[in-house]
C-alpha cells in the first residue's frame, strides 16, 4: 500500500525538479533570445547568403525572375579573383591604407590627443575632444563635401586659396595626392574612437598613482612613459585590434571622396571593390556572385587577423590571478 505511494511521490518530485530545470533553462535562453534573433537575422543569415552567392554566377546579366537559372559554379569566382590583374594592386592598397591610417591617426594621434587633453585644464580638454567628435557624428556625405570643397581646384578650394595667397602653384589635390587625403579624411574620423577610449582609460587611473609618480621624482613625460602608457596597455591593444578590423571594412568615405580613383584603382580598397563588383559596376552590370567572393575573403582576412591579435597580445593573460595572503 505504502510502496506505490512512495514511488509516485518520488516520480512526482523528479518531475517537479525536471520542470524547474527546464524553467531556468528556458529563462536563460529567453533572455538571450532578442539579441540572438538579431544576430541571426542581421549577421548569420546574410553571411550564409553571401557565402552561397560567392559560389554562384549570379549577376545582373543573367538575372531573371527565374532564380533556378542561377548556376552553381564552385570556386570559379575565387579563381577569377586570384587571376584578376587588379586584385593584387587592390590588396596592397588595402594594406597600405589600413596600416598608415591606423598607425598615424587611429592610434598615435588618438594617443597624443588624449594625453594632451588630459594634461591641460579639464574643461578646455573636454571642449577640444568634443570638437574632434564632430567628424564622426557628421553625415559622411556632408563631411566629404566639406573636404571636397577644401581641396577643390583654384579658385574654389581653401587650400589652393592659401597657395595663391602665398604665391605658390595650385593643385588639384584629389588627383595629385589622392592617398594623402584618403588617409587624412579617414584618420580624422578614426582619431575620435581611440581618443574616447584612451581618455577614459587615462582618467580612470587613480589620482594617487599619478601623484605618487611625481613625488617619486618623475617629470610629466617620464610619468607618461613609465606609468600612464603601461596602465592603458589593454585599451591600446583593444583600439589597435578593433580599428584594424573597422578600417578593413570601411569604404564609404573613400567611395565619396575618390571612388577608388583617380585612374584605375589608385585608391581602391578591398571592401570598396566588393561593393563596386556586386552593386555598382559599369553600366549597371552587377556581379553579385563575384562581389560576394571579395566580401567572403575580406571576412576571412578579418577573422584571421582577429585570432592573431588575440594570440599575439595575449588578451587572456591581461587578467592576473591574485595570490593574496595574510600578513
Amino acid at each position: 500500500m505504502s510502496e506505490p505511494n512512495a514511488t509516485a511521490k518520488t516520480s512526482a518530485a523528479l518531475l517537479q525538479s525536471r520542470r524547474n530545470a527546464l524553467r531556468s533553462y528556458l529563462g536563460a535562453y529567453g533572455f538571450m533570445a532578442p539579441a540572438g534573433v538579431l544576430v541571426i537575422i542581421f549577421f548569420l543569415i546574410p553571411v550564409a547568403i553571401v557565402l552561397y552567392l560567392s559560389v554562384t554566377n549570379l549577376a545582373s546579366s543573367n538575372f531573371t525572375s527565374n532564380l533556378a537559372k542561377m548556376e552553381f559554379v564552385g570556386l570559379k569566382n575565387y579563381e577569377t579573383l586570384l587571376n584578376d590583374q587588379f586584385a593584387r594592386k587592390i590588396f596592397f592598397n588595402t594594406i597600405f591604407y589600413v596600416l598608415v591610417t591606423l598607425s598615424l591617426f587611429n592610434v598615435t594621434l588618438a594617443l597624443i590627443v588624449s594625453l594632451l587633453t588630459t594634461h591641460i585644464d579639464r574643461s578646455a580638454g573636454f571642449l577640444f575632444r568634443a570638437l574632434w567628435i564632430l567628424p564622426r557624428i557628421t553625415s559622411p556625405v556632408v563631411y566629404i563635401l566639406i573636404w571636397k570643397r577644401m581641396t577643390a581646384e583654384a579658385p574654389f578650394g581653401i587650400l589652393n586659396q592659401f597657395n595663391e595667397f602665398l604665391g605658390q602653384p595650385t593643385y588639384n589635390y584629389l588627383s595629385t595626392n589622392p592617398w594623402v587625403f584618403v588617409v587624412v579624411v579617414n584618420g580624422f574620423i578614426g582619431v575620435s574612437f581611440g581618443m574616447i577610449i584612451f581618455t577614459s582609460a587615462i582618467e580612470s587611473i587613480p589620482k594617487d598613482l599619478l601623484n605618487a609618480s611625481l613625488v617619486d621624482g618623475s617629470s610629466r613625460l617620464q610619468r607618461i612613459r613609465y606609468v600612464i602608457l603601461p596602465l592603458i596597455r589593454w585599451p591600446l591593444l583593444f583600439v589597435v585590434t578593433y580599428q584594424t578590423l573597422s578600417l578593413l571594412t570601411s569604404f564609404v568615405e573613400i567611395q565619396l571622396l575618390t571612388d577608388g580613383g583617380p585612374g584605375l584603382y589608385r585608391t581602391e580598397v578591398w571592401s570598396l571593390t566588393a561593393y563596386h563588383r556586386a552593386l555598382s559596376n559599369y553600366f549597371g552590370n552587377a556581379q553579385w556572385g563575384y562581389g560576394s567572393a571579395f566580401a567572403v575573403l575580406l571576412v576571412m582576412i578579418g577573422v584571421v587577423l582577429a585570432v592573431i591579435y588575440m594570440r599575439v597580445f595575449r588578451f587572456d593573460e591581461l587578467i592576473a590571478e591574485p595570490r593574496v595572503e595574510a600578513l
Partner: protein
Amino acid sequence: MEIRIDNLTKKFGDVVGVEDLTLHIDDGEFVAFLGPSGCGKTTTLLTLAGIYKPTEGLIRFGDRVVNTVQPKDRNIGMVFQSYALYPHMTIFQNIAYPLKLKKAPKNVQNEQVRQVANVMGIGELLDRRPGQLSGGQQQRVALGRALVKEPDVLLFDEPLSNLDARLRLTMRGEIKHLQKNLGITSIYVTHDQVEAMTMADRIAVMNLGQLQAFDAPDELYDRPKTRFVAGFVGNPPMNFLDVDVSQSNGGFVAAADSIQLPVGNERGEPPAGYDGSVVMGIRPEDITIADDGDVNGEIFVVEPLGREDLIDARVGPHSFILLADTEKQHRAGERVALKFDMTQAQFFDPQTERSLLWN
C-alpha cells in the same frame, strides 16, 4: 629639513582648501595634521609635495622657497592611503622606481632596494606584483619606496586608514620607531586622534581650512585652546555643558539647572567675568561615580569596554559620558551620585569657542 609655512592659502576656484596657515616645523620633527575630512589637511600635504601650487603664502624647505619647485626637485617621500603602488611593476621595480628616475646605477639600485626591503620585512616579496600582496604588505612596500631615495621630508596621507585595527596598531609603532631612527622630518595627515596623539611630537589640529591649534599632544589634551580642539582630541570625547559661573562664598560656582559645581579660583575666575553663560568642558575620566558626589543622576546606558565601562549618565536634560570600574557592575536605571573633578574643567566662550583659560 626645517619646513616653514607662512600665510599659506590654497583655493580651488572659489572653494578655500586652506586659509592663512602659518606653521613652522623643526628639523627631524614628527608633526601630525589632525582634523575631520574636508578640513584642509590633505590639501596642505599635497601643496607641500608640490602637486598643488599655493595661491598665496610661502613654503620654505630650509632656506629654499619651494612654492614653484616641481615635486621631483623637492626630494620628498610620500605614503598614500591607497598605497599607490604601480600595479604593472613588481615590488622590486616599485621600490627601485625613484632610484631609476635618479638614474642610479643598476647595482646601486639593487643594493639599496634590497636593504630597504629587508628593513621593511618584505625582502622575499620582491618579485611579486602589488595585487598579490595583502594590505599590510603593500603599505610596507609604499613606505619602502618613500624611504629608498633617502628623502629630506616624509609625507604620510592617512597611511593606516585602510588597514585592520590590529595591523594599524603594529604599523603605528613601526612608523614611529623608523622615523625616530632615521630622523627624517615627517608630516602625518590623519583624522584619527589616537594616531596623532601616539605618534606625533606636535599636532596641528585643523578645521574648515583653518589651523585650530599647533601643540604637543599633552598640551592639546590638558590645555585645549578652542572648543573644537577640546572636543576632537581625546576618546571618548569631552563632555560639554552650558553653565553660568558666579562668585559664591569666596569661591566660584558653575551652575546649570539643578547642577551646582564649586570651581577653584584659578579656573573659576575667568569664566565668572564673562557676561552670560559659558560652555564648560569636562573629560570622562574627570567624572566619577562616588557616594559623596555633588550631583544626582541616573545611568542611561552602560557600554562594557572590557577594561572599563563607558557610562552615559543623565542628570535632568543633561547627558555625561564617563568611565567606571567594571567591578562596580553598574546597571542602566541605577541612581548614582556623580563627582566632578573641577580642577580639570575647561571653559569656552560660547560665541568665539575660544578657551577662557588658555589664550
